[in-house]
């Protein structure tokens, strides 16, 4: 199963998901109101590359990262 990791201040444990694409991940998160507040402002990476749409296939060995707004320096 693919792994979802929540980075920085989201402070959630990693989760495993059985999905074929990122649209299915959106459906899984649809009813999680607290997470939705983060998703609204977060970017998404698949295997450490930021994605530009949800029209992306996901394989069982993939890693999906949720990245909230950043502020280095």
């Amino acid at each position, binding site marked *: 199963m693919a792994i979802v990791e929540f*980075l920085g201040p989201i402070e959630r444990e990693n989760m495993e998901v059985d999905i074929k694409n990122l649209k299915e991940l959106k459906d899984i*998160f649809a009813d999680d109101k607290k997470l939705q507040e983060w998703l609204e402002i977060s970017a998404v990476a698949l295997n450490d590359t930021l994605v530009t749409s949800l029209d992306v296939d996901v394989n069982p060995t993939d890693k999906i990262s949720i*990245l909230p707004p950043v502020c280095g320096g």
Partner: protein
Amino acid sequence: MLELYQGSLKVEDILSRWYKKYRDKNYGAFISFVGIVREEDSIDGLSFDIYEPILNKWFQEWQEEAKKRGAVVLMAHARGDVYIHESSYISAVLSPKRKVALKLIDEFVEGFKANAPIWKYDLLQGKRVYAKERSLKLPNSGILSNL
């Protein structure tokens, strides 16, 4: 060269080492930017989380861009807690001519602020408080949201 440290940066050591490494490589300009934690809003300091895999890719792209211009970019950043008047961030550019370095350091620091996967927290009375209002959304944020 990208260097990550636990806690505050030893600025004099890092800059001195970089200078010694490059001073005989025929770069005419060495420009550095050092970020120092300011005393404001009753904070004790700042704290940082870093996601290294994407940071490494991001930095690699800047190295390639610098190389195209005959330049080199260097960066050091802290993870964890950095207190007031300590330093969390150094970036530097070396290039044969000053104008290339001056332009590139500005672009590099601005690009860093907008895209480097680093999260900042204020240290307030022993707690880490995410600096949400000062943070910037990455490109294509919100695509997983239903809101």
